[in-house]
């Protein structure tokens, strides 16, 4: 195998803003806070940054969804760049991180600042969380075949996937709960997590339904917060204060047919294609992974990622997580050690990336996975998915 080009990239810095409910701060303010922390963490000055990228850029979306665009952030930081990009479509929300790896590998930039910022908690403070398309008279594009039927949230679209998985494989609500409860146990060890008080199986089953089988605790918690990373050329590794986090492989594939309700096997997702692609670019194997940071916008998505990445067989994720001990700290595959989006907050994929970097650097204190050398990050749901394999 010729060496995959992404191995010419490292993650040299990581930084996060304050993360919380209803911070009532501007998204640009949060982004600058995270960006300056990530740049300092990499041992760099803002003037060293010569690339900038973000998910998703200033697109139409729900209130507080998009965060500031790259032009605003570049301007606020007073930097010049040789490469820049933002966008919504790509291999999961970490798409700009993956793109930045190739930008530094190609020599377009040496140090790329990549960020994801949300203010969905503050944005919904007065209204509560609304559905996609709420308040629109007419729906264009793919939503035209979903939203008029009241399928106005990914919770609805993915509940259909989850129920089918339950039907075909006998997956139970207790298995969804295992993700929520494990995340919460881990969040208790993360001072930056949003929900840290204990969560029991009883609490889980007493919660109100959102879109069955998803109850409140199966759905991630909207927050305000920004996560930034610095993607640098591997040549720079020796000059940096921290041991670098190395990019071993990325997964960016997408199979037929990327339409929510026409996806041929809805017990799988794009995660399946991205994971297969990632493993084709590395000698490492699932058994080499020390911690998995897997998207949990809904608890069910983590189950699908576990299957996609080959930690268990197809349809076997329920029994794999049953009881939670295997995926807890101290188990064979510590999962979402920062609390995930269910308890740590909906940082939209980048919370998993930040945690993977910190675990590999051994900075996680009470929640540190011992001798953590390989971490996998998988983000996205339905026809959206991308993954990265990171090493120390």
């Amino acid at each position, binding site marked *: 195998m010729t060496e995959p080009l992404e191995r010419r990239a490292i993650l040299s810095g990581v930084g996060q803003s304050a993360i919380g409910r209803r911070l009532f701060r501007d998204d640009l303010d949060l982004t600058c806070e995270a960006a300056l922390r990530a740049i300092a963490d990499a041992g760099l000055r803002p003037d060293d940054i010569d690339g900038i990228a973000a998910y998703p850029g200033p697109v139409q979306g729900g209130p507080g969804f998009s965060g500031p665009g790259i032009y605003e952030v570049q301007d606020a930081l007073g930097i010049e760049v040789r490469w820049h990009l933002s966008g919504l479509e790509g291999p999961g929300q970490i798409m700009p991180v993956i793109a930045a790896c190739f930008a530094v590998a190609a020599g377009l930039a040496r140090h790329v600042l990549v960020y994801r910022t949300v203010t969905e908690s503050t944005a919904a403070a007065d209204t509560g969380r609304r559905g996609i398309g709420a308040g629109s008279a007419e729906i264009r594009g793919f939503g035209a075949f979903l939203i008029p039927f009241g399928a106005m949230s990914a919770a609805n*679209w993915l509940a259909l996937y989850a129920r089918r998985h339950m039907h075909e494989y006998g997956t139970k609500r207790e298995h969804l709960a295992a993700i929520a409860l494990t995340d919460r146990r881990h969040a208790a060890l993360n001072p930056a997590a949003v929900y840290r008080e204990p969560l029991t199986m009883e609490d889980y089953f007493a919660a109100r339904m959102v*879109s069955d089988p998803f109850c409140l605790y199966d759905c991630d918690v909207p927050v305000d917060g920004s996560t930034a990373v610095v993607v640098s050329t591997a040549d720079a590794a020796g000059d940096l204060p921290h041991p670098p986090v190395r990019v071993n492989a990325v997964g960016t594939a997408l199979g037929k047919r990327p339409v929510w309700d026409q996806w041929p096997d809805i017990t799988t997702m794009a995660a399946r294609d991205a994971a297969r692609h990632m493993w084709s670019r590395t000698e490492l194997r699932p058994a080499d992974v020390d911690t998995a940071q897997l998207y949990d916008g809904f608890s069910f998505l983590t189950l699908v990622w576990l299957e996609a990445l080959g930690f268990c067989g197809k349809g076997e994720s329920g029994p794999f997580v049953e009881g939670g001990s295997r995926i807890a700290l101290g188990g064979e595959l510590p999962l979402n050690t920062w609390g995930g989006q269910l308890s740590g907050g909906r940082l939209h994929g980048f919370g998993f990336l930040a945690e993977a970097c910190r675990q590999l650097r051994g900075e996680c204190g009470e929640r540190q996975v011992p001798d953590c050398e390989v971490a996998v990050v998988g983000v996205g749901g339905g026809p959206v998915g991308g993954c990265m394999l990171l090493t120390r």
Partner: protein
Amino acid sequence: MAGFFRPLPALEPLTAPFWRACRAGRLEFLHCPRCSYFVHPPRPICPRCRQGELERRAVSGRGVLYSYTVNHKAWYPGQEVPYVIGLVELAEQEGLRLTTNIVNCPPERLRIGLPVRVVFEVLNDEVALPLFEPAEEGR
């Protein structure tokens, strides 16, 4: 809280015939005459054989419930809940599915594999939504 109501599908050139057929009481999909593939959502060419000149073809309106969820959360002020969102696979082609609502069906009767048939909810002069209700088994 004025201004909240059920969003309607936009009538775009590719999709308008689908909604207008529903308004006329027919469930129709684009169909490829060369490889006999129903193409949904509408596309300008057949994604299987990459030929154009797709035709509109009516289907029986029969299918089975492929998956479902009871939605309990109001997604906009005034929306009535709960309601059932179903994913229906049409009888004519494996994988030809519609996200829809299941109506005239007590929740305890919901199950994957339930035979269903189309009914239309008229929204205005041009648009009706294809909804589904339980069909008698074996009919």
